[in-house]
């Protein structure tokens, strides 16, 4: 039972065995999902640890696969994965629910599109899971179990595709790896041929072209089944719909339409959600939510706000409320959930006319107390709210050190950063989304931006100082239409910062300058009124803004910074900087709110947005595909021959003459006929003399015979032969050049 089998691919002088090509394809597959792990760890830290464990897994797999059978891979892989997951679940705090049901619910959420970035302690998870996903396929491919390697690697890649963490480019690279393993594995087993390689190349090029231009798969943005059941049903959440993440956009436009009217005993920022994980380009809220229960008030001094919201928009999926909402009054609490950030999250969308009432306790922002709050942060808070991605540069920390040089405590640092941002950056809704880390770019490169940029930068700067801070979205208080009544429009949406102080809790800071914003907002509202846009006004807001009588007991702060207002005892009324609109995730806002149109300007277009290195790879692949096709169709060899017959590299005289004769013979064979077997060069040339083969050819023939049989040709003769052949093949009419 034997057969001649070609187990290596020869191209030119290079021979690579198909097995090693399959190994290389496995490397591509593994690298595709490792890039996701790497991305995770570069956001939450542990990048170097990841590289270390992955290198360890690769080395271990390579060494062990030499000795041990294939099934060992699954045993060791299961041990690695089990150990990793165990260490992960043991670090996740508050796993009071039955462990298995929690794990199952978590994984269902992940597989239906919840990004793993929304998992708590995702760094530990990545370090726990990555070694197994590298070890198993790598081991199997070295055992030549190609299909099993594809299955194990494919499961890992598929997981990240389903969690929406693997982008199109990463997924495509992984799929090409998978198909490469399958094809090279087939060739390693059956023996390959050039024709097979060509088919593979054509397939790969077609795949790249098709999947980057055509979308075969229907479906919109991810809508995971969350273990909490909330937030995910809204078809993509929404900016102000308490979604799980906020992507920072470029230019945005905000709707002037009324979203809510609020009746409250004090003005406040109406907070929708807070985000803890910063990825450099967007904000993610980790961990899920819990069924509604009465919340504890903030630890320090606080005052109460009773507020009733009436929904004026067609449909909304957020329940804004002043921080910190303690309890919900009435039947709105059915199906209500409390997010890990303390925000209210309705299970279903609220429709026009619905109302809900919330009692909040707002921590008093008393400077003297906050100055002395110290830095004794709970470890859970510190770990969760001081992490920065690797993309945030050291330079930002140095800059922040500079800005906060005179601050003696976190409060003063926060105030210094807030003031620096307010004074040094201009306000504009028309900005190009920066490439790379948003905070870096806003602080060092950009002249202006809107609230999302201000808030993101401030959080990043605070975290660089080790101060726990988070990114908050919601609405400013809106237009005050009566003493206890506010109209909140889509353009009142805003992003700000909460900073944690021991014994006080989360305290609001707003680095966005208020003045220019209010003006922009007023203009938009008037424009909308002039254009008769419906839904711009409610509760008499068209009659202008209600202003409190000068005798009001409350100290109205018009100071933008709250810094000097040490003596402020009353509620913090932010009339002065009301109306900072703005904030990203315009896309989801459109999909859910209907009336709150945020349009991303100059956004996508192409289904896959690839980095330039990817474009290089893409171009390279296309080139290889075209080259292979050319070779397959014989174009390449014809091109080579055409060049070979026209230009001759020089060597020693004998080789030159022989090569010259070969060229002549090839040329004559193309023009007339091939030399017959047994026909001497002399006979051949003589036989062709009647069709116009002249003296030059005969001379070359003579020189060839001399070189071949007498072995004595001089350099001049070689030159002569080469130049004669050059003349002949290039069709020169020059005749009779006797040497």
């Amino acid at each position: 039972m034997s057969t001649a089998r070609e187990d290596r691919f020869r191209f030119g002088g290079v021979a690579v065995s198909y097995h090693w090509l399959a190994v290389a394809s496995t490397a591509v597959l593994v690298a595709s999902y490792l890039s996701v792990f790497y991305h995770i760890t570069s956001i939450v830290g542990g990048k170097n640890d990841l590289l270390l464990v992955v290198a360890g897994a690769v080395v271990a797999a390579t060494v062990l696969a030499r000795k041990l059978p294939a099934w060992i891979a699954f045993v060791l892989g299961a041990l690695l994965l089990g150990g990793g997951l165990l260490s992960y679940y043991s670090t996740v705090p508050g796993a009071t629910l039955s462990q298995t049901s929690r794990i199952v619910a978590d994984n269902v959420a992940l597989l239906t599109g919840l990004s793993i970035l929304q998992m708590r302690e995702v760094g530990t998870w990545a370090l726990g899971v990555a070694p197994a996903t590298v070890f198993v396929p790598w081991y199997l491919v070295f055992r030549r179990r190609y299909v099993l390697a594809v299955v194990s690697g494919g499961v890992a890649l598929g997981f990240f595709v389903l969690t929406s963490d693997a982008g199109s480019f990463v997924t495509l690279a992984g799929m090409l790896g998978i198909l490469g393993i399958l094809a090279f594995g087939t060739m390693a087993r059956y023996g390959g041929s050039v024709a097979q390689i060509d088919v593979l190349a054509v397939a790969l090029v077609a795949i790249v072209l098709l999947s980057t231009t055509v979308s075969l798969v229907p479906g919109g943005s991810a809508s995971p089944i969350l273990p909490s059941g909330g937030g995910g049903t809204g078809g993509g959440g929404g900016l102000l719909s308490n979604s799980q993440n906020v992507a920072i956009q470029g230019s945005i436009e905000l709707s002037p339409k009324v979203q809510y009217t609020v009746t409250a005993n004090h003005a406040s920022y109406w907070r929708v959600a807070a985000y803890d994980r910063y990825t450099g380009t967007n904000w993610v809220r980790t961990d899920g939510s819990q069924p509604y229960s009465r919340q504890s008030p903030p630890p320090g001094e606080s005052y109460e706000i009773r507020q009733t919201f009436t929904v004026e928009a067609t449909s909304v999926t957020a329940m804004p409320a002043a921080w910190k909402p303690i309890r919900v009054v009435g039947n709105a609490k059915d199906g209500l959930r409390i997010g890990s950030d303390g925000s209210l999250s309705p299970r279903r969308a609220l429709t026009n006319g619905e109302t809900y009432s919330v009692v909040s306790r707002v921590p008093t922002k008393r400077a003297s107390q906050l100055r002395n709050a110290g830095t004794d942060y709970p470890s859970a808070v510190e770990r969760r709210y001081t992490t920065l991605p690797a993309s945030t540069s050291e330079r930002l920390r140095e800059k922040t050190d500079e800005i906060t040089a005179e601050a003696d405590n976190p409060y003063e640092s926060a105030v210094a950063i807030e003031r620096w941002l307010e004074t040094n950056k201009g306000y504009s809704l028309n900005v190009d989304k920066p490439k790379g880390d948003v905070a870096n770019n806003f602080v060092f490169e950009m002249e202006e931006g809107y609230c999302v940029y201000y808030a993101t930068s401030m959080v990043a700067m605070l975290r660089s100082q080790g101060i726990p801070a988070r990114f908050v979205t919601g609405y400013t208080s809106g237009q005050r239409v009566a003493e206890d009544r506010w109209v909140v429009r889509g353009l009142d949406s805003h992003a700000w910062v909460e900073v944690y102080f021991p014994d006080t809790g989360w305290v609001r800071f707003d680095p966005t300058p208020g003045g220019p914003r209010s003006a922009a907002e007023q203009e938009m509202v008037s424009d909308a009124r002039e254009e008769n846009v419906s839904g711009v006004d409610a509760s008499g807001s068209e009659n202008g803004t209600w202003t409190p009588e000068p005798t009001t007991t409350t100290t109205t702060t018009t100071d933008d910074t709250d810094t000097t207002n040490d003596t402020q005892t009353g509620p913090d009324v932010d009339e002065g900087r009301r109306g900072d609109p703005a904030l990203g995730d315009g896309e989801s806002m459109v999909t859910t709110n209907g009336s709150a149109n945020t349009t991303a300007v100059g956004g996508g277009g192409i289904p896959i947005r690839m980095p330039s290195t990817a474009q290089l790879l893409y171009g390279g692949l296309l080139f290889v595909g075209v080259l292979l096709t050319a070779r397959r169709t014989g174009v390449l060899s014809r091109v080579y021959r055409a060049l070979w017959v026209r230009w001759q590299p020089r060597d020693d005289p004998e080789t030159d003459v022989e090569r010259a004769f070969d060229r002549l013979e090839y040329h004559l064979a193309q023009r007339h006929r091939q030399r017959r077997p047994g026909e001497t060069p002399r006979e051949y040339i003589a036989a062709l003399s009647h069709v116009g083969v002249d003296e030059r050819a005969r001379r070359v023939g003579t020189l060839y015979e001399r070189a071949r049989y007498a072995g004595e040709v001089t350099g001049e003769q070689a030159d002569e032969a080469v130049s004669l052949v050059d003349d002949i093949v290039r069709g020169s009419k020059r005749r009779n050049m006797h040497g």
Partner: protein
Amino acid sequence: MLTRRGQVFVGVGVVGVVLALSFGARSLNAVVSPIVVALLVGYVQLKRTSHPHLDVSAPTVGFRDEEATISLDFSAADPFAGNVSLRLADGLEHLGESVDASIGETTVEFDVRLAKRGEQAIGPVLVVAKDVFGLFERTFTHQVRETILVFPQITQIDSVKAVTALEESLNVTIRREFEQLREYQRGDPLRDVHWKSSAKRPGDELLVREFESEDERQRVEISAEADAGRVDVVADAAASIAVALLDAGVAIGMTTPEDRVAPDVSEGQQTHILTLLAHMESGRLHDRERSQADIVVRGSTERADAEVQFGGRTVSFDEFVTGGLNRTQSRAVRADGGARSERGGRR
């Protein structure tokens, strides 16, 4: 048409689309598109694959228990990955199931053991072609008309001893008397060289014996019969005796329950006898046939080996081989008429 791997591909593609519909597209397009392209490319590749041309080379004859090599010479314009399997008649056995190969200008060889006597058919040859990703498969069936004629197994018998034994028991002179010695001429069989006399002569000249005319040569009739289950041993024994005696220049006739080959010394005689024995089946001879035979080889259910009856004696074949003396190694010999001849050589 779809392989299991192909089914998994289709499954993953469908699940991808369903998940995209239910929970959002994510990057599932980059999963589904490659799958669709791979399936398309695989399908087209196999669709365009044509029936490969096949030449089968196999020996036309062989001896039982020998090995023979059957080579399948494929030639396909566009090479493809294929799994080649060879169906064989019951009488041919091969270890190893099938061979994976790239089917282009490819030769695949199967070593088979010739397990049973008689005409053994080769084929059909099945080639299961796969596309480059192994997602589809397509079976090409080649009907092959080759057969291998399997002769009985020959045990070497020292022909001189056998002849002597027979001469003594049958009380006949089997060995032809030579009339005179003469000088060796080209074409004389070496067995006729008279070494003793040659050694005494000076120079390199050899002397050969010259015999009586052909007609007067001795003939020996062998009959063979066997009960069911003993046919192989009887056929082996009868063939071994016949080959040994033919080598000694005796004209041998062979009778089996099926047929008869008349005594002859022609070149093809050995092949005729071996072919007769290759097809031998269990059965009884007529008494007349048995009585006419000089040697009767019989196999009865009661005895494991064949018994050889001649001149009123009955010996087991084993005894006959050793001649009651030293045991000769049993080995297969090539019959000079029925040697392995490649296809086309003897057809």
